[in-house]
């Protein structure tokens, strides 16, 4: 994707904040896509009689389901937060070298 011509800095906003908001808008767009796809799947399953309309809303998972979801969630959190932990690890190593 090419960069914009004359994308002026917004007064009072740091470049970091501006970039972060771009990222948030982009992530939200992807979330909207995922949400709509799930809705499509639910609609098709109900329409074709595979599931009753309230199947998702009334879903109660087993302990096994909960464990699988916990793993999915913690993996997602760890991946999304990786730049934060990587940055801290890098700062820690630099500080250790500086103070060695």
């Amino acid at each position, binding site marked *: 994707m090419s960069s914009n011509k004359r994308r002026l800095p917004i007064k009072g906003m740091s470049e970091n904040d501006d970039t972060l908001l771009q990222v948030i808008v982009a992530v939200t767009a992807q979330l909207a896509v995922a949400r709509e796809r799930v809705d499509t799947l639910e609609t098709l399953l109900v329409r074709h009689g595979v599931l009753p309309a309230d199947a998702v809303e009334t879903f109660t998972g087993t302990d096994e389901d909960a464990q699988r*979801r916990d793993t999915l*969630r913690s993996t997602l959190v760890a991946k999304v*937060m990786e730049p*934060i932990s990587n940055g*801290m690890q890098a700062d820690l190593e630099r*500080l250790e070298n500086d103070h060695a």
Partner: protein
Amino acid sequence: MPDRHAMLPVANHDEMAEQFFIRDLKMHIGRKLDPLAEKMAAVLDPGERNNARVETVYNELQEQPSFGRFLSTWRASQDVLWSLIGHSVDRQRGDLEERAAIKQPLGSVTLDPDFVQPSYLEDGDVHLMPGGYGLDDGGVGQGAVMDNGGAIYMLGMNGGFLNDGRGWTLASHLKARWPDFAPDKILEMGCGIGASIVPLVETYPEAEVHGIDVGASVLRYAHARAESLDAAVHFKQGDAERAPYPDESFDCVFSCALFHETSPEAISNIIKESMRLLRPGGVVAHLEVPQRYEEVSLWNQVRGEVEREYNNEPNWKTAISADYHSLLEMAGFEDIATGYQDAAREAVPGNDGFGGESKGVFRSWFVASGIKPKTA
């Protein structure tokens, strides 16, 4: 014993997923990011002899680019937690108000329309909960937000959705020190949504139990919550430093994790107020977090500065540094004990769970207790 109560907001499928996400994000911060920050603090430690050790480390940490991102991530987890809970409660507001309308209540709630909350609460919303403890939304909404958020904030480790671990621990402490104590009237100062007061009702079923706090919405919710658990409690809006009851009204005055959300002056005033409110021979017991400032690690001392600045916990350091034995003594109490009570899920007479060593967060709670002399 039920594992939840009828006033608790019920998350739908997506809200449940959101809340699990925040819980797991907080666990990730605690298990992965916090230890990295702790290691950075250790590298920057100027040594125990430095007079401004904690301040030096905190200032240096803030110079590190990744530390700001760590703080921001942690604060975002807090901001988003309250936002998600707020939306969930808003969706259920009508239903919650219906559930709170009790036809034949066992207890009561008395509000003061002219009440002004203490300045230390006016200055910032504790834990960043929008509106703080004092917000009056005209109903029970703010109490529902506080209750639901609190259970997640404690990561379910203080009695799950009942969030009553501290209340059971306080009751257990009373049974440990005074197995035959049979109070007629009990008061909890700073009762919040009444999570800790219900175990006291269950432990002393013959007693008349009262609770005071600053927020009208929180108290309406506390009342409905207690009723849903068949607990008769009389809630009143008031300031624990100037409690709206006559002298010598109670046989037992207690609080659960109140001091660290007040001010240095308020701690002393609340202890003096406990003395005024107690009948001769009455019992005071104040429970706090299970850390003492001089014993916590350098990182946890720095963490205290972070909590003060970014999570509106302005009195954490004072509350865990205070000499409660002296404060109780100066207020006129006798038979004073300070120490750690094992976290409990029941109150057994004469249990031996009170001692001088903390077993750690969620395993022990600090308690300072004593007796008002029978003769002046």
